[in-house]
């Protein structure tokens, strides 16, 4: 089968309100490009991301999910991202265990001053998902793309 040149991945990015969302904003106002395939969902804190959000995103047709939060130690609520870190470590490990390719999920710490990091992270992540291809294992057939 020829490679589908037109494959446009759907990426969901959960960004925390205080650091990463502002980082994305900075990337935008600094005119740093990142792929339009990334759909940002703003959350109050990376700790707000229920593991079910990620599963649900995949179910509804996302090809990759990335969670961005404040750097450890810089959480607006002091400790939220530490809890998120443990939770996501467990969830990602479980997803890998049941046969979901490692790389479809990622956590990255992006501060409000790191517009460049946001843009490079998203570019990297999108190309990683492009190399992995469409998410066929987790999608729900009822959800039309």
């Amino acid at each position, binding site marked *: 089968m020829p490679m589908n040149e037109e494959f446009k991945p759907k990426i969901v990015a959960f960004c925390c309100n205080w650091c990463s969302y502002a980082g994305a904003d900075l990337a935008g106002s600094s005119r740093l490009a990142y792929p339009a395939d990334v759909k940002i969902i703003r959350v109050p804190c990376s700790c707000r991301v229920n*593991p*079910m959000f990620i*599963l*649900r995103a*995949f*179910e509804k047709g996302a090809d990759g999910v990335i969670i961005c939060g404040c750097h*450890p*130690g810089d959480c607006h609520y002091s*400790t939220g991202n*530490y*809890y998120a*870190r*443990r*939770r*996501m*470590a*467990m*969830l*990602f*490990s*479980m*997803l*890998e*265990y*049941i*046969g*979901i*390719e*490692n790389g479809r*999920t*990622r*956590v990255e710490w992006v501060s409000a001053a790191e517009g460049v990091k946001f843009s490079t992270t998203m570019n990297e992540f999108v190309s990683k998902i492009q190399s992995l291809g469409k998410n066929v*294992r*987790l*999608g*729900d*057939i*009822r959800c039309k793309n």
Partner: protein
Amino acid sequence: MQELINRAKELLADGTVARVLGWREGDMSYNPEVAYFNSAEELDKFVYNGFCAANLSKYMIEASKLEGKTLVFLKPCDTYSFNQLLKEHRVDREKAYIIGVGCCGKLNVEAIKAMGIKGIQSIEIDDACETLTVKTIYGDKTVAYKDAMLERCHVCKGKEHMVYDELMGESRDTVDAERFAEVEKIEAMSPAEKFAFFQAELSKCIRCNACRNVCPACSCRKCVFDSNKFDSAQKANVDSFEEKMFHIIRAFHVAGRCTDCGECSRVCPQGIPLHLFNRKFIKDINKFYGEFKAGEDAETKGPLTNFTFDDVEPCDAVERG
């Protein structure tokens, strides 16, 4: 068994306890059922043998709401679940009178059937717990006790009771397998193989919710799977992912609280090895956040409600896990 009945009768008679929670004869000799006993006469139906595998800790949630104390018989591994429930304030220690009973491994009738033994009428266990005499319509067969044990008993947590008021009976060491061997075997597979493995196992799921209902860690009064707003709630699955969704979510909900009591795998009518999910989480927790045994005590913070400043990053966890 008789000494347990006698002691229960004594405690009922002197008013220490208002009722007894234990097992009574089921319709077959190999499926005793969980039961409450309110009087000495009822206790004549009490049984305790190798088939009394049910973990009674979860029943103590409801028993804690009743008037008076409940006498409950807990095996060593059940006491972990009780401690965990105590930590979560789901059971009341004051409402329980715990007799720690001895355990020499619990039996699984499915393991006997898997040996090709059909038409089982009754099963007798010898006093030393070494051999089983299986009476079938095709004649008697003998099976080694060890070969008919539940999976969880081959990786037994130990014969010490973590919490009790008194102890009765002897326990036996039954460990003869590596606890994480199966998990490691799956981890070594390629993503496609893993996916195929879980697809094959989980597609058997009929969403009867038995695993949830029996699980001592699943003690929420309102469960996400009972919500009609949730995609995986009480209905037939339309695709393979929904089956997985249910099991990933369930395993995640009990991660860090699961004592690996193995009840989920025992009750699954489809024979799905559900402990493989829980044990993966336990393995990861031990590896990344230090050895942790849920239910060992009733005070320590659980690994997912705690953190350290230099925890492993999720992406590294996947590579190292």
